[in-house]
């Protein structure tokens, strides 16, 4: 963290000089890779944003700030968690600091506010924000997503709930915004294609002091699938238990609702919840063991999807820079390279990308348990090579409208 401030100051003092240096064709192997991070370090969304920074810093430290023989200049920027802030900070990173690649931003509405901008300025962006269409109908050749689309994991949950858990009737509950709609739509589609019925869909607003009015509407169902994010899952699961539903109706969860990093904020109300996620701290790959150990040593926390996602993003940058070799990691070439790479060992398993820039990788089904006083998400099933299109035909999938509150239509609402 100290490095980035120094870098920026240096950049300020010698803005003209470094711009000239970048254009010089010689000593390419020594040209540093400039990585900018767009994250949220202040305001209500800071929790996920701070984890993102921890993830990428852990990766860069492990690599001693050197990727494929090039030094790394790392610059971190705080968007404050709003679209206008994301735009300004993207301008700062691209126009002032001339970064080669941007990691982030955190929230879908921040990503949507800057996708056109990064395309215009030909700067690759590796985001964890889940907005479906950014890698589908409005695919942007400069945007790469190593985490998952909103629905990517939820398709898996629909499959698991119908086939393995044999549930017939489900209620869904998630925040009233696109990430929620897309998650619930993905679950509903696969669940209903496998014989289940979603009989109730509830949409509390992002800011809801109390979930009781919504929980009170959950009727007679076999399971409740929730897709909350940020600090909301903590509130929701407590209210769910308080109102006596926990013992009666099993709770299923998307990745943000049962993220490993959130476990320290949860209590007994989370035990038994089954969740799907593109990352699990429990996963046994070599890089994940290193990553989890480093995160516990440096920050004393169990990493979750936000930090792991950024670690994987760092690995992708490394692979792409490696692939480019002597060719500099610039704009379009870097974006193209990022689409072509595959990384065999990441904390979330092998990773590659489809032509839309979205990850094809493992999705884990986990059950929350208490082990030695600590809550852990134990992996109970792994689905490999999951694409954003699930098992559906890509063309057909893209011909449909994007997942939303009204699509696919809920035919069985009671």
């Amino acid at each position, binding site marked *: 963290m100290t490095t980035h401030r120094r870098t920026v100051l240096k950049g300020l003092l010698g*803005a003209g000089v470094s711009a000239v240096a970048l254009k010089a064709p010689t000593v390419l192997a020594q040209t540093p890779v400039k990585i900018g991070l767009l994250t949220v370090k202040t305001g209500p969304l800071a929790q996920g944003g701070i984890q993102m920074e921890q993830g990428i810093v852990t990766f860069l430290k492990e690599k001693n700030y050197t990727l494929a023989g090039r030094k790394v200049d790392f610059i971190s920027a705080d968007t*404050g968690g709003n679209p*206008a802030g994301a735009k300004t900070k993207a301008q700062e990173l691209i126009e002032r600091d001339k970064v080669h690649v941007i990691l982030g931003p955190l929230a879908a509405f921040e990503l949507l506010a800057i996708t056109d901008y990064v395309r215009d300025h030909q700067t690759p962006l590796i985001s964890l924000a889940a907005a479906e269409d950014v890698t589908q109908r409005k695919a942007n050749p400069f945007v790469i997503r190593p985490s998952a689309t909103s629905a990517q994991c939820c398709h898996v949950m629909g499959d698991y709930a119908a086939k393995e858990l044999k549930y017939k009737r489900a209620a869904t509950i998630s925040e009233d915004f696109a990430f929620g709609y897309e998650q619930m739509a993905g679950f509903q589609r696969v669940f209903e294609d496998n014989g289940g019925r979603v009989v109730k869909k509830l949409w509390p607003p992002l800011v809801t002091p109390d979930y009781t009015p919504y929980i009170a509407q959950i009727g007679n169902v076999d399971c409740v699938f929730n897709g909350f994010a940020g600090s909301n899952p903590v509130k929701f699961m407590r209210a769910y238990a308080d109102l006596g539903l926990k013992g009666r109706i099993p709770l299923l969860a998307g990745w943000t609702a049962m993220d490993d990093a959130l476990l320290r904020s949860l209590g007994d109300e989370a035990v038994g919840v089954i969740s799907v996620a593109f990352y699990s701290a429990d996963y046994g790959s070599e890089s994940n063991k290193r990553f989890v150990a480093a995160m516990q040593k440096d920050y004393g926390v169990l990493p979750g999807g936000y930090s792991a996602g950024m670690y994987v993003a760092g690995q992708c940058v490394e692979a792409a820079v490696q692939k480019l070799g002597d060719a500099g990691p610039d704009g379009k070439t870097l974006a193209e390279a990022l689409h072509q790479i595959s990384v065999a060992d990441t904390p979330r398993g092998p990773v590659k990308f489809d032509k839309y820039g979205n990850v094809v990788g493992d999705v884990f089904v986990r059950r929350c348990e208490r082990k030695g006083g600590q809550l852990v998400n134990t992996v109970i099933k792994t689905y490999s090579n999951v694409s954003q299109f699930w098992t559906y035909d890509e063309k057909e999938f893209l011909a449909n409208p994007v997942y939303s509150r009204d699509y696919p239509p809920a035919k069985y609402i009671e």
Partner: protein
Amino acid sequence: MSGNRFRSVGVAIALVLLATLPLWVGNSYYINVASQILLFAVFALALNVLVGYAGLVSLGHAGLFAIAGYAAALMLQAGYGHLAADTAAVVITLAASAIFAVLALRSTGIGFLMITLALGQIIWGIAYRWASLTNGDNGINVATRPAPFGINLTGAPGFYFATLLVFLLALASMAVFVRSPFGASLRGTRDQPLRMNALGYNVWLIRFFAVLFSGFWTAVSGLLFIYYNQFISPQVAALTTSAEILLMVISGGTATLLGPVVGAAIVVVMKNVVSAYIERWNLVLGVIFVLIISFMPDGLVPGSVRLWRWGWQTVRARLDGWISSPVEEHGR
């Protein structure tokens, strides 16, 4: 006399600096920051009409700002041209301002503040929850910037000059307004509402027009905002935006022309530039506000002017004393 000359020289220098800013700032990022300062300065000037000259503190102006932005963004999305969209946005915002005025002018002081706050929250609530109209949290993209008279505003300098022009127009209109009979009567309603009434002025009507005047420039700044960001989402309408703009006005100095501009510069620079170096910039911003209130309760601009005068007088007194006592024949 010398004060006036000082002022004209100062204004001339400021104009030259502003007009040549893209040349000496160099990097387009800083040009963009300058555009942001100017557009928020227009917003702060608009709010200052009410806060400073009418003595009416509004905590709902982000609502008007957002109405302009959403109206234009929705019309552009529906395929209307920039001129039609922008005109409609201004008209709609003026209508909304009139509704604000009718409701909020039932009261003054804290009552006015509370009514505007509640109205602002209602607009935020609609932007946020009526997703079928506003696209909720995901916001609306604005595909292109306009090209008035064929001038391209896509680049940072082009947009800066356009914003500067609007800013200067706003500033000039404020200067005219302050000196006008309307401005004088508005200040009268602020300081002596009962006497104004007794003198036959329609206090309510004067305040009503002040809200419309403020609403007009708020709409213009809202348009600049969406063209700058090419995006709008409900956060624009939030209470924190209203509070931020109010803080700009108060910290710079209400009822001054320069105060809101200085306030806008402080907040924008803290948020966008200083935040790159100081992780706890919110804390620093809060401390700055508390310090301003503790040491310059009437704001930075009037406070600095006072400090400057005091310093100048002290220095001159010392100089006079120093010059006059040993060689009295040279004393003036």
